[in-house]
């Protein structure tokens, strides 16, 4: 390839590009997408079964190990996928360097803050004392 003459051989072999991340973002986004196909179908089906249910019934649902584990995986995959997707939107539409960096940091903080809140609530439901 003629147009790669400004790249060092090492840089070409590493394949990490200017952001030093290579295809990691791309790969993580696809990986979480594939995981979310069955997980989100499971989540919607489960949530629909509890429309209008009492708090106790919902708590009992998440006290089941299999349901708690699936919900944990759903939260982690969804939060990671969400943070990657929102990051891409920020990178595409915000071009002022300071604003972009600020939003990228806030995006990660907000997404994992949401994930931590969801995870902690789930933990409480899964192992907490029965109400």
């Amino acid at each position: 390839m003629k147009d790669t003459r400004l790249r060092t051989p090492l840089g070409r072999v590493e394949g990490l590009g200017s952001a030093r991340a290579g295809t990691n973002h791309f790969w993580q986004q696809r990986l979480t997408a594939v995981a979310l196909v069955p997980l989100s179908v499971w989540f919607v089906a489960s949530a629909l079964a509890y429309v209008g249910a009492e708090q106790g019934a919902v708590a009992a649902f998440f006290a089941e190990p299999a349901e708690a584990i699936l919900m944990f995986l759903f939260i982690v995959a969804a939060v990671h996928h969400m943070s990657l997707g929102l990051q891409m939107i920020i990178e595409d539409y915000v071009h002022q360097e300071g604003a972009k960096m600020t939003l990228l940091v806030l995006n990660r903080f907000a997404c994992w803050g949401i994930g931590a809140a969801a995870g902690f609530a789930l933990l409480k439901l899964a192992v907490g004392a029965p109400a």
Partner: protein
Amino acid sequence: MAASITHRVTGMMLAGGMLLLVWWLVAAASGPDAYAVFARVAGHPVGQVVLFGLLWALAFHLLNGVRHLAWDLGYGFKMSTARLTAALVYAASVLIAAGAFAVGMIVRGGLGL
């Protein structure tokens, strides 16, 4: 194509939906009183519209995401194929959202079934 921007918009809708998911879990973990507040908002007509919108957004984002994954594997790139699958995703997402919403209403007893 419109499906591309719709994918982004539905993705952002689902990010907002994650806030409701957190509210649901925190309410369930906080006890009957907190859960009753969530249930009242979710059952309100405005809440129902939001929930229907989220069901549609998820159905669209999931189906169109599978379309993207197929592209990543090299399938479905022909223009006519891409147009057809886009139309299918739009139609199927509306049908799935309506179906899922109807199931929710039946579970809640709102259809009198």
